[in-house]
Protein backbone atom coordinates (compact mmCIF):
# COMPACT_ATOMS: atom_id res chain seq x y z
CA UNK A 1 0.00 0.00 0.00
CA UNK A 2 1.27 3.44 -0.89
CA UNK A 3 1.51 5.59 2.20
CA UNK A 4 0.30 9.15 2.17
CA UNK A 5 3.32 11.18 1.66
CA UNK A 6 3.97 14.83 1.03
CA UNK A 7 6.58 17.45 1.71
CA UNK A 8 5.55 20.19 4.16
CA UNK A 9 5.19 23.86 3.23
CA UNK A 10 8.67 24.66 4.61
CA UNK A 11 10.17 22.33 1.93
CA UNK A 12 12.50 20.96 4.61
CA UNK A 13 10.40 18.33 6.30
CA UNK A 14 7.59 15.91 5.68
CA UNK A 15 3.99 16.76 6.25
CA UNK A 16 3.46 14.87 9.48
CA UNK A 17 -0.33 14.68 9.12
CA UNK A 18 -1.26 11.04 8.81
CA UNK A 19 2.26 9.80 9.51
CA UNK A 20 2.51 7.16 12.18
CA UNK A 21 5.55 6.18 14.25
CA UNK A 22 6.59 2.58 13.77
CA UNK A 23 9.58 0.54 14.82
CA UNK A 24 11.93 0.73 11.82
CA UNK A 25 12.48 -2.50 9.88
CA UNK A 26 16.05 -2.98 11.05
CA UNK A 27 15.33 -1.78 14.59
CA UNK A 28 12.69 -4.52 14.73
CA UNK A 29 15.33 -7.15 13.93
CA UNK A 30 17.64 -5.66 16.56
CA UNK A 31 14.92 -5.75 19.21
CA UNK A 32 13.97 -9.33 18.37
CA UNK A 33 17.62 -10.39 18.52
CA UNK A 34 17.95 -8.74 21.94
CA UNK A 35 14.85 -10.51 23.23
CA UNK A 36 16.08 -13.89 21.98
CA UNK A 37 19.50 -13.43 23.58
CA UNK A 38 17.93 -12.52 26.92
CA UNK A 39 15.59 -15.52 26.75
CA UNK A 40 18.59 -17.80 26.25
CA UNK A 41 21.18 -16.15 28.46
CA UNK A 42 19.29 -14.04 30.99
CA UNK A 43 19.30 -10.30 31.60
CA UNK A 44 16.86 -7.74 30.35
CA UNK A 45 16.23 -5.66 27.25
CA UNK A 46 15.85 -1.91 27.55
CA UNK A 47 14.38 -0.02 24.57
CA UNK A 48 15.68 3.48 23.94
CA UNK A 49 14.56 6.13 21.50
CA UNK A 50 15.28 9.79 20.77
CA UNK A 51 12.35 11.89 19.70
CA UNK A 52 9.12 13.73 20.44
CA UNK A 53 6.37 12.20 22.55
CA UNK A 54 5.12 10.31 19.52
CA UNK A 55 7.94 7.79 20.02
CA UNK A 56 6.35 6.67 23.29
CA UNK A 57 3.89 4.66 21.24
CA UNK A 58 6.83 2.93 19.54
CA UNK A 59 8.55 2.28 22.86
CA UNK A 60 5.31 0.75 24.20
CA UNK A 61 5.35 -1.63 21.23
CA UNK A 62 8.86 -2.65 22.24
CA UNK A 63 7.66 -3.23 25.79
CA UNK A 64 4.72 -5.26 24.48
CA UNK A 65 7.15 -7.47 22.54
CA UNK A 66 9.00 -8.18 25.78
CA UNK A 67 11.42 -5.38 26.69
CA UNK A 68 11.61 -4.78 30.45
CA UNK A 69 11.69 -0.98 30.42
CA UNK A 70 11.92 1.97 28.10
CA UNK A 71 13.69 5.31 27.95
CA UNK A 72 12.65 8.26 25.82
CA UNK A 73 15.33 10.87 25.27
CA UNK A 74 12.97 13.68 24.54
CA UNK A 75 13.69 15.96 21.61
CA UNK A 76 10.91 17.82 19.82
CA UNK A 77 12.90 17.70 16.62
CA UNK A 78 15.35 14.90 15.85
CA UNK A 79 18.32 16.38 14.03
CA UNK A 80 19.34 14.85 10.69
CA UNK A 81 22.97 14.91 11.79
CA UNK A 82 23.96 11.46 13.14
CA UNK A 83 26.72 12.82 15.34
CA UNK A 84 24.26 15.08 17.20
CA UNK A 85 22.04 12.05 17.96
CA UNK A 86 24.97 9.79 18.82
CA UNK A 87 26.13 12.28 21.45
CA UNK A 88 22.73 12.10 23.18
CA UNK A 89 22.80 8.30 23.09
CA UNK A 90 26.39 8.06 24.32
CA UNK A 91 25.58 10.36 27.25
CA UNK A 92 22.65 8.09 28.20
CA UNK A 93 24.44 4.77 27.64
CA UNK A 94 27.90 5.41 29.03
CA UNK A 95 27.13 4.36 32.59
CA UNK A 96 24.38 1.89 31.71
CA UNK A 97 26.44 -1.25 32.19
CA UNK A 98 25.02 -2.86 29.05
CA UNK A 99 26.66 -5.98 27.59
CA UNK A 100 25.32 -5.29 24.13
CA UNK A 101 23.96 -2.17 22.51
CA UNK A 102 21.99 -3.09 19.41
CA UNK A 103 20.91 -0.78 16.60
CA UNK A 104 19.15 -1.38 13.31
CA UNK A 105 21.71 -0.96 10.54
CA UNK A 106 19.90 2.18 9.44
CA UNK A 107 16.66 4.05 9.98
CA UNK A 108 14.30 3.30 7.13
CA UNK A 109 13.24 6.96 6.90
CA UNK A 110 16.44 9.03 6.95
CA UNK A 111 18.49 6.07 5.64
CA UNK A 112 21.81 7.32 7.02
CA UNK A 113 23.10 4.32 8.97
CA UNK A 114 25.56 6.41 10.94
CA UNK A 115 24.28 6.64 14.53
CA UNK A 116 25.24 3.11 15.65
CA UNK A 117 28.95 3.17 14.76
CA UNK A 118 29.21 6.82 15.85
CA UNK A 119 27.78 5.97 19.27
CA UNK A 120 30.22 3.06 19.58
CA UNK A 121 33.14 5.32 18.77
CA UNK A 122 32.01 7.93 21.31
CA UNK A 123 31.66 5.20 23.94
CA UNK A 124 35.00 3.65 22.96
CA UNK A 125 33.33 0.26 22.47
CA UNK A 126 34.06 -2.44 19.88
CA UNK A 127 31.52 -2.36 17.08
CA UNK A 128 30.48 -4.55 14.17
CA UNK A 129 27.98 -3.12 11.71
CA UNK A 130 25.29 -4.60 9.52
CA UNK A 131 25.49 -8.14 10.89
CA UNK A 132 23.37 -11.03 9.64
CA UNK A 133 24.49 -13.73 12.12
CA UNK A 134 25.60 -13.63 15.73
CA UNK A 135 26.94 -16.04 18.32
CA UNK A 136 27.70 -14.99 21.88
CA UNK A 137 29.65 -17.18 24.31
CA UNK A 138 31.83 -16.53 27.33
CA UNK A 139 31.96 -12.78 26.98
CA UNK A 140 32.89 -12.85 23.31
CA UNK A 141 30.93 -12.61 20.13
CA UNK A 142 31.33 -13.75 16.54
CA UNK A 143 29.32 -11.91 13.93
CA UNK A 144 29.00 -12.30 10.21
CA UNK A 145 28.43 -9.34 7.95
CA UNK A 146 27.66 -9.38 4.25
CA UNK A 147 29.87 -7.39 1.94
CA UNK A 148 29.53 -6.92 -1.78
CA UNK A 149 30.08 -10.42 -3.16
CA UNK A 150 31.57 -11.81 0.05
CA UNK A 151 31.12 -11.99 3.80
CA UNK A 152 33.30 -11.22 6.82
CA UNK A 153 33.31 -13.03 10.14
CA UNK A 154 34.39 -10.81 13.00
CA UNK A 155 35.28 -11.60 16.58
CA UNK A 156 34.91 -9.09 19.38
CA UNK A 157 34.78 -8.89 23.18
CA UNK A 158 31.75 -7.66 25.14
CA UNK A 159 30.55 -5.06 25.89
CA UNK A 160 30.04 -4.13 22.26
CA UNK A 161 27.83 -2.22 19.85
CA UNK A 162 26.24 -4.10 16.95
CA UNK A 163 24.08 -2.88 14.10
CA UNK A 164 21.69 -5.41 12.67
CA UNK A 165 20.88 -6.25 9.08
CA UNK A 166 17.91 -8.10 7.74
CA UNK A 167 17.54 -11.82 8.14
CA UNK A 168 18.87 -12.33 11.63
CA UNK A 169 15.56 -12.63 13.46
CA UNK A 170 12.00 -11.95 12.38
CA UNK A 171 10.31 -9.66 14.90
CA UNK A 172 7.60 -11.37 16.93
CA UNK A 173 4.10 -10.00 17.15
CA UNK A 174 3.16 -8.67 20.56
CA UNK A 175 0.62 -10.86 22.32
CA UNK A 176 -2.45 -9.39 23.96
CA UNK A 177 -0.92 -10.29 27.31
CA UNK A 178 2.25 -8.48 26.29
CA UNK A 179 0.31 -5.39 25.25
CA UNK A 180 -1.53 -5.32 28.61
CA UNK A 181 1.72 -5.84 30.53
CA UNK A 182 3.44 -3.07 28.57
CA UNK A 183 1.06 -0.49 30.02
CA UNK A 184 2.51 -1.10 33.47
CA UNK A 185 6.17 -1.27 32.50
CA UNK A 186 8.37 1.74 33.29
CA UNK A 187 8.92 4.34 30.57
CA UNK A 188 11.31 7.04 31.70
CA UNK A 189 11.49 10.38 29.92
CA UNK A 190 14.64 12.50 30.00
CA UNK A 191 15.71 15.45 27.88
CA UNK A 192 18.04 14.40 25.04
CA UNK A 193 21.49 15.94 25.39
CA UNK A 194 21.85 16.39 21.65
CA UNK A 195 25.13 17.52 20.18
CA UNK A 196 25.34 20.50 17.89
CA UNK A 197 24.23 19.71 14.34
CA UNK A 198 26.49 20.78 11.49
CA UNK A 199 24.61 18.77 8.91
CA UNK A 200 21.22 20.31 8.28
CA UNK A 201 18.41 19.72 5.85
CA UNK A 202 18.31 22.54 3.38
CA UNK A 203 15.42 21.26 1.33
CA UNK A 204 13.51 18.16 0.41
CA UNK A 205 12.21 17.39 -3.02
CA UNK A 206 10.57 14.56 -4.83
CA UNK A 207 13.10 12.79 -7.02
CA UNK A 208 13.29 14.05 -10.57
CA UNK A 209 10.65 12.12 -12.39
CA UNK A 210 11.94 9.54 -14.73
CA UNK A 211 10.48 10.05 -18.15
CA UNK A 212 7.11 8.31 -18.13
CA UNK A 213 7.33 4.61 -18.77
CA UNK A 214 6.93 3.44 -22.33
CA UNK A 215 5.66 0.06 -23.46
CA UNK A 216 7.37 -0.67 -26.75
CA UNK A 217 5.53 -3.80 -27.69
CA UNK A 218 4.08 -7.17 -26.79
CA UNK A 219 5.64 -10.58 -26.73
CA UNK A 220 8.90 -11.88 -28.16
CA UNK A 221 8.30 -10.01 -31.43
CA UNK A 222 9.13 -6.76 -29.60
CA UNK A 223 12.68 -7.96 -28.87
CA UNK A 224 14.31 -6.62 -32.09
CA UNK A 225 12.81 -3.18 -31.41
CA UNK A 226 14.17 -3.33 -27.83
CA UNK A 227 17.63 -4.11 -29.18
CA UNK A 228 17.43 -1.25 -31.66
CA UNK A 229 16.45 1.17 -28.86
CA UNK A 230 19.17 -0.07 -26.51
CA UNK A 231 21.75 0.38 -29.26
CA UNK A 232 20.64 3.60 -30.93
CA UNK A 233 18.71 5.51 -28.26
CA UNK A 234 20.13 4.37 -24.91
CA UNK A 235 23.52 3.66 -26.52
CA UNK A 236 24.18 0.73 -24.23
CA UNK A 237 25.12 -2.18 -26.40
Amino acid at each position, binding site marked *: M*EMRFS*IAADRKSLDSAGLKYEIG*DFDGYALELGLQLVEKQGGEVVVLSVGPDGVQETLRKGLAMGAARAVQLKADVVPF*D*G*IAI*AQALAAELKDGGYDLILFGRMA*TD*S*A*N*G*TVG*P*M*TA*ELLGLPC*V*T*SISQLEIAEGRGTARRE*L*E*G*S*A*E*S*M*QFPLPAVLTIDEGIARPRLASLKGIMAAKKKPLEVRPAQL*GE*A*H*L*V*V*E*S*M*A*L*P*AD*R*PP*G*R*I*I*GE*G*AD*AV*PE*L*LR*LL*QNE*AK*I*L
Partner: protein
Amino acid sequence: MASILAFAEARTGDLRKVALETVTAARQAADGSGGGEVHAMLIGGPGIAARAEMLGRYGADLVIVVEDAGLQHYSPEVFTATLAERLRSGGYRAAFFPASAQGRDLSPRVAAKLKVSLASDVTGFEIEGDSVVARHPAYTGKVIVTLRLKGTPALLSLRPGSITATEQPRTARVEKMAPAMNPADARVKVTELTQRGATKLDLGEASIIVSGGRGLRAAENFKLVEDLAAAFGNAAVGATRAVTDDGWRPATDQIGQTGRLVSPDLYIAVGISGAVQHLAGMRTARTIVAINKDKDAPIFKIADYGIVGDLFEIVPRLTAEIRKARKDH
Protein backbone atom coordinates in the same frame (compact mmCIF):
# COMPACT_ATOMS: atom_id res chain seq x y z
CA MET B 1 45.25 25.45 -0.51
CA ALA B 2 43.19 22.80 1.24
CA SER B 3 43.48 19.22 0.08
CA ILE B 4 40.81 16.54 -0.24
CA LEU B 5 41.33 13.06 1.18
CA ALA B 6 39.90 10.03 -0.62
CA PHE B 7 39.68 6.62 1.03
CA ALA B 8 40.70 4.07 -1.63
CA GLU B 9 38.95 0.83 -0.70
CA ALA B 10 40.79 -2.39 -1.46
CA ARG B 11 39.92 -6.01 -0.80
CA THR B 12 42.28 -8.99 -0.92
CA GLY B 13 45.01 -6.80 -2.35
CA ASP B 14 42.99 -5.29 -5.20
CA LEU B 15 41.39 -1.89 -5.54
CA ARG B 16 37.62 -1.95 -5.68
CA LYS B 17 35.82 0.00 -8.37
CA VAL B 18 34.46 2.34 -5.69
CA ALA B 19 38.05 3.36 -4.90
CA LEU B 20 38.34 4.88 -8.37
CA GLU B 21 34.93 6.54 -8.02
CA THR B 22 35.96 8.04 -4.68
CA VAL B 23 39.20 9.42 -6.11
CA THR B 24 37.30 10.79 -9.12
CA ALA B 25 34.86 12.56 -6.75
CA ALA B 26 37.72 13.99 -4.70
CA ARG B 27 39.37 15.24 -7.92
CA GLN B 28 36.11 16.96 -8.92
CA ALA B 29 35.81 18.50 -5.44
CA ALA B 30 39.42 19.75 -5.48
CA ASP B 31 39.17 21.21 -8.98
CA GLY B 32 35.83 22.79 -8.18
CA SER B 33 37.05 24.53 -5.04
CA GLY B 34 40.27 26.23 -6.06
CA GLY B 35 42.41 23.34 -7.20
CA GLY B 36 43.80 21.75 -4.04
CA GLU B 37 45.49 18.36 -4.02
CA VAL B 38 43.83 14.97 -3.85
CA HIS B 39 45.39 12.60 -1.34
CA ALA B 40 44.26 8.99 -1.61
CA MET B 41 44.68 6.74 1.41
CA LEU B 42 45.40 3.12 0.56
CA ILE B 43 45.49 0.61 3.41
CA GLY B 44 46.29 -3.09 3.12
CA GLY B 45 48.68 -5.98 3.49
CA PRO B 46 52.14 -6.34 1.91
CA GLY B 47 52.05 -5.51 -1.80
CA ILE B 48 49.22 -3.00 -1.61
CA ALA B 49 51.62 -0.18 -2.59
CA ALA B 50 51.59 -1.57 -6.14
CA ARG B 51 48.04 -0.20 -6.47
CA ALA B 52 49.13 3.40 -5.90
CA GLU B 53 49.88 4.07 -9.57
CA MET B 54 46.28 3.31 -10.54
CA LEU B 55 45.02 5.94 -8.09
CA GLY B 56 47.27 8.50 -9.78
CA ARG B 57 45.67 7.63 -13.07
CA TYR B 58 42.28 8.62 -11.63
CA GLY B 59 43.47 11.92 -10.26
CA ALA B 60 45.34 11.43 -6.97
CA ASP B 61 48.32 13.78 -6.50
CA LEU B 62 49.56 11.86 -3.48
CA VAL B 63 48.92 8.30 -2.36
CA ILE B 64 49.37 7.65 1.35
CA VAL B 65 50.23 3.96 1.60
CA VAL B 66 49.65 2.16 4.88
CA GLU B 67 51.10 -1.30 4.37
CA ASP B 68 51.21 -3.78 7.23
CA ALA B 69 51.15 -7.56 7.49
CA GLY B 70 48.34 -7.21 10.05
CA LEU B 71 46.12 -5.37 7.56
CA GLN B 72 45.41 -8.07 4.99
CA HIS B 73 41.81 -7.80 6.16
CA TYR B 74 39.74 -4.79 7.12
CA SER B 75 40.30 -3.66 10.68
CA PRO B 76 37.69 -1.09 11.73
CA GLU B 77 39.75 0.21 14.64
CA VAL B 78 43.09 0.52 12.84
CA PHE B 79 41.55 2.06 9.72
CA THR B 80 39.56 4.55 11.82
CA ALA B 81 42.53 5.57 13.94
CA THR B 82 44.81 5.95 10.90
CA LEU B 83 42.36 8.03 8.86
CA ALA B 84 41.54 10.19 11.87
CA GLU B 85 45.22 10.77 12.57
CA ARG B 86 45.85 11.84 8.99
CA LEU B 87 42.79 14.11 8.88
CA ARG B 88 43.75 15.64 12.22
CA SER B 89 47.15 16.55 10.85
CA GLY B 90 45.31 19.38 9.15
CA GLY B 91 44.88 20.96 5.78
CA TYR B 92 41.98 18.78 4.65
CA ARG B 93 38.86 20.49 3.41
CA ALA B 94 36.93 17.25 3.01
CA ALA B 95 37.23 13.48 3.06
CA PHE B 96 35.41 11.16 0.68
CA PHE B 97 34.48 7.53 1.34
CA PRO B 98 32.45 5.07 -0.70
CA ALA B 99 29.05 4.20 0.78
CA SER B 100 30.02 0.54 0.37
CA ALA B 101 29.81 -2.06 3.16
CA GLN B 102 33.29 -1.05 4.31
CA GLY B 103 32.86 2.69 3.75
CA ARG B 104 29.54 2.73 5.59
CA ASP B 105 31.24 1.03 8.52
CA LEU B 106 34.33 3.21 8.50
CA SER B 107 33.13 6.74 7.71
CA PRO B 108 30.81 7.23 10.74
CA ARG B 109 33.56 6.03 13.06
CA VAL B 110 36.06 8.50 11.61
CA ALA B 111 33.44 11.27 11.89
CA ALA B 112 32.78 10.43 15.55
CA LYS B 113 36.48 10.24 16.35
CA LEU B 114 36.95 13.73 14.90
CA LYS B 115 33.55 14.93 16.22
CA VAL B 116 32.60 16.20 12.78
CA SER B 117 29.50 15.56 10.69
CA LEU B 118 29.11 13.07 7.89
CA ALA B 119 26.76 13.24 4.92
CA SER B 120 26.13 9.58 4.08
CA ASP B 121 25.04 7.77 0.94
CA VAL B 122 25.38 10.89 -1.17
CA THR B 123 24.44 10.88 -4.87
CA GLY B 124 25.72 14.36 -5.72
CA PHE B 125 27.55 17.27 -4.11
CA GLU B 126 28.98 20.78 -4.57
CA ILE B 127 31.46 22.66 -2.46
CA GLU B 128 30.09 26.15 -1.80
CA GLY B 129 32.48 28.34 0.16
CA ASP B 130 32.60 27.12 3.74
CA SER B 131 29.97 24.45 3.32
CA VAL B 132 29.26 21.40 1.21
CA VAL B 133 25.85 20.85 -0.32
CA ALA B 134 25.02 17.17 -0.72
CA ARG B 135 22.06 15.21 -2.02
CA HIS B 136 20.90 12.05 -0.25
CA PRO B 137 17.95 9.81 -1.15
CA ALA B 138 15.78 9.04 1.90
CA TYR B 139 12.32 7.77 2.79
CA THR B 140 12.55 4.68 0.59
CA GLY B 141 14.00 6.79 -2.20
CA LYS B 142 10.81 8.84 -2.34
CA VAL B 143 12.52 12.06 -1.26
CA ILE B 144 15.83 13.60 -2.23
CA VAL B 145 17.15 15.48 0.78
CA THR B 146 19.50 18.37 0.08
CA LEU B 147 21.87 18.77 3.00
CA ARG B 148 24.23 21.54 3.99
CA LEU B 149 27.33 20.28 5.74
CA LYS B 150 29.44 22.75 7.68
CA GLY B 151 32.76 22.31 9.39
CA THR B 152 36.17 21.04 8.35
CA PRO B 153 36.91 18.43 7.31
CA ALA B 154 33.50 17.69 5.76
CA LEU B 155 32.99 13.93 5.52
CA LEU B 156 30.93 12.39 2.72
CA SER B 157 30.21 8.83 1.70
CA LEU B 158 29.22 8.38 -1.94
CA ARG B 159 26.66 5.91 -3.19
CA PRO B 160 28.48 3.39 -5.43
CA GLY B 161 27.79 4.07 -9.08
CA SER B 162 26.62 7.65 -8.56
CA ILE B 163 29.92 8.97 -9.90
CA THR B 164 31.58 7.58 -13.00
CA ALA B 165 35.23 6.80 -12.42
CA THR B 166 37.14 8.96 -14.89
CA GLU B 167 40.84 8.90 -15.71
CA GLN B 168 42.72 12.14 -15.08
CA PRO B 169 46.24 10.83 -15.23
CA ARG B 170 49.11 12.20 -13.23
CA THR B 171 52.10 10.62 -11.58
CA ALA B 172 51.14 10.37 -7.95
CA ARG B 173 53.74 10.85 -5.25
CA VAL B 174 53.78 8.04 -2.73
CA GLU B 175 54.13 8.54 0.99
CA LYS B 176 54.37 5.65 3.44
CA MET B 177 52.52 5.99 6.70
CA ALA B 178 52.51 3.63 9.68
CA PRO B 179 49.15 2.49 11.04
CA ALA B 180 48.05 4.71 13.93
CA MET B 181 47.67 1.65 16.17
CA ASN B 182 49.15 -1.81 16.17
CA PRO B 183 46.76 -4.13 14.29
CA ALA B 184 47.47 -6.83 16.90
CA ASP B 185 45.91 -4.57 19.55
CA ALA B 186 42.56 -4.23 17.77
CA ARG B 187 39.63 -5.66 19.72
CA VAL B 188 37.54 -6.43 16.65
CA LYS B 189 39.20 -8.84 14.25
CA VAL B 190 38.15 -10.28 10.91
CA THR B 191 38.63 -14.02 11.29
CA GLU B 192 37.38 -15.05 7.88
CA LEU B 193 36.56 -13.54 4.52
CA THR B 194 34.34 -15.79 2.43
CA GLN B 195 34.19 -15.12 -1.26
CA ARG B 196 30.91 -16.09 -2.86
CA GLY B 197 31.88 -17.38 -6.28
CA ALA B 198 35.09 -15.56 -7.07
CA THR B 199 34.03 -14.78 -10.61
CA LYS B 200 30.64 -13.43 -9.63
CA LEU B 201 30.31 -9.76 -10.45
CA ASP B 202 29.05 -7.66 -7.58
CA LEU B 203 25.71 -5.87 -7.96
CA GLY B 204 27.24 -2.56 -6.90
CA GLU B 205 29.97 -2.78 -9.51
CA ALA B 206 28.02 -4.14 -12.46
CA SER B 207 27.08 -1.74 -15.23
CA ILE B 208 24.29 -4.10 -16.26
CA ILE B 209 21.95 -5.92 -13.86
CA VAL B 210 19.35 -8.51 -14.82
CA SER B 211 16.91 -9.03 -11.99
CA GLY B 212 14.14 -11.53 -11.44
CA GLY B 213 10.90 -11.54 -9.47
CA ARG B 214 8.02 -13.83 -8.60
CA GLY B 215 6.95 -13.85 -12.23
CA LEU B 216 9.63 -16.48 -12.80
CA ARG B 217 7.38 -18.85 -10.81
CA ALA B 218 10.16 -21.16 -9.53
CA ALA B 219 13.75 -20.99 -8.38
CA GLU B 220 15.03 -23.11 -11.28
CA ASN B 221 13.63 -20.62 -13.80
CA PHE B 222 16.25 -18.13 -12.63
CA LYS B 223 18.41 -19.88 -15.22
CA LEU B 224 16.68 -17.64 -17.80
CA VAL B 225 17.88 -14.57 -15.89
CA GLU B 226 21.37 -15.99 -15.50
CA ASP B 227 21.57 -16.85 -19.20
CA LEU B 228 20.54 -13.32 -20.15
CA ALA B 229 23.13 -11.85 -17.78
CA ALA B 230 25.78 -14.17 -19.23
CA ALA B 231 24.84 -13.09 -22.76
CA PHE B 232 25.80 -9.52 -21.88
CA GLY B 233 29.14 -10.80 -20.62
CA ASN B 234 29.41 -8.22 -17.85
CA ALA B 235 26.05 -8.33 -16.08
CA ALA B 236 25.16 -9.27 -12.50
CA VAL B 237 22.01 -11.04 -11.32
CA GLY B 238 19.66 -9.47 -8.77
CA ALA B 239 16.32 -10.39 -7.25
CA THR B 240 13.31 -8.96 -5.45
CA ARG B 241 12.66 -9.36 -1.75
CA ALA B 242 9.80 -11.79 -2.42
CA VAL B 243 12.24 -14.06 -4.21
CA THR B 244 14.99 -13.89 -1.58
CA ASP B 245 12.44 -14.36 1.23
CA ASP B 246 11.32 -17.54 -0.50
CA GLY B 247 14.90 -18.75 -0.67
CA TRP B 248 15.03 -18.86 -4.48
CA ARG B 249 18.09 -16.63 -4.30
CA PRO B 250 20.47 -15.69 -1.46
CA ALA B 251 19.44 -12.67 0.64
CA THR B 252 22.53 -10.84 -0.62
CA ASP B 253 21.02 -10.70 -4.11
CA GLN B 254 18.09 -8.60 -2.93
CA ILE B 255 17.70 -5.21 -4.58
CA GLY B 256 15.44 -2.79 -2.74
CA GLN B 257 15.03 -0.64 0.32
CA THR B 258 16.17 -3.36 2.71
CA GLY B 259 18.70 -4.81 0.28
CA ARG B 260 21.14 -3.34 -2.17
CA LEU B 261 20.71 0.10 -3.68
CA VAL B 262 22.03 0.06 -7.24
CA SER B 263 22.47 2.52 -10.11
CA PRO B 264 23.63 0.51 -13.14
CA ASP B 265 23.62 1.78 -16.72
CA LEU B 266 21.04 -0.84 -17.60
CA TYR B 267 18.57 -2.62 -15.33
CA ILE B 268 16.41 -5.38 -16.78
CA ALA B 269 13.47 -6.34 -14.58
CA VAL B 270 12.15 -9.79 -15.44
CA GLY B 271 8.79 -10.80 -13.95
CA ILE B 272 8.98 -7.97 -11.41
CA SER B 273 5.79 -6.05 -10.68
CA GLY B 274 7.60 -3.07 -9.15
CA ALA B 275 6.69 -2.80 -5.46
CA VAL B 276 7.76 0.48 -3.84
CA GLN B 277 10.34 -1.36 -1.75
CA HIS B 278 11.98 -2.73 -4.92
CA LEU B 279 11.83 0.52 -6.88
CA ALA B 280 13.67 2.25 -4.03
CA GLY B 281 16.69 0.10 -4.80
CA MET B 282 16.89 0.57 -8.57
CA ARG B 283 14.99 3.64 -9.71
CA THR B 284 18.23 5.56 -10.22
CA ALA B 285 19.37 3.14 -12.94
CA ARG B 286 20.14 5.02 -16.15
CA THR B 287 17.99 2.83 -18.39
CA ILE B 288 15.29 0.46 -17.18
CA VAL B 289 13.83 -2.39 -19.21
CA ALA B 290 10.81 -4.29 -17.89
CA ILE B 291 9.37 -7.58 -19.06
CA ASN B 292 6.09 -8.52 -17.41
CA LYS B 293 2.84 -10.14 -18.41
CA ASP B 294 0.67 -7.56 -16.60
CA LYS B 295 0.50 -4.33 -18.59
CA ASP B 296 -0.71 -2.49 -15.45
CA ALA B 297 2.30 -3.52 -13.32
CA PRO B 298 3.87 -0.45 -11.62
CA ILE B 299 7.29 -1.31 -13.09
CA PHE B 300 6.00 -0.12 -16.49
CA LYS B 301 5.49 3.39 -15.05
CA ILE B 302 9.25 3.83 -14.72
CA ALA B 303 10.55 1.50 -17.42
CA ASP B 304 12.13 3.28 -20.37
CA TYR B 305 11.36 0.24 -22.48
CA GLY B 306 8.63 -2.15 -21.44
CA ILE B 307 7.58 -5.35 -23.13
CA VAL B 308 4.26 -6.89 -22.12
CA GLY B 309 4.01 -10.62 -22.46
CA ASP B 310 5.23 -14.05 -21.48
CA LEU B 311 8.73 -13.76 -20.07
CA PHE B 312 9.33 -17.44 -20.86
CA GLU B 313 9.14 -16.53 -24.55
CA ILE B 314 10.61 -13.04 -24.45
CA VAL B 315 13.70 -13.62 -22.31
CA PRO B 316 15.18 -16.54 -24.33
CA ARG B 317 14.67 -14.51 -27.53
CA LEU B 318 16.35 -11.49 -25.95
CA THR B 319 19.24 -13.67 -24.77
CA ALA B 320 19.72 -15.03 -28.28
CA GLU B 321 19.57 -11.55 -29.87
CA ILE B 322 22.05 -10.10 -27.37
CA ARG B 323 24.47 -12.96 -28.05
CA LYS B 324 24.13 -12.35 -31.77
CA ALA B 325 24.58 -8.58 -31.41
CA ARG B 326 27.71 -9.00 -29.33
CA LYS B 327 29.18 -11.50 -31.80
CA ASP B 328 28.64 -9.07 -34.68
CA HIS B 329 30.68 -6.38 -32.98
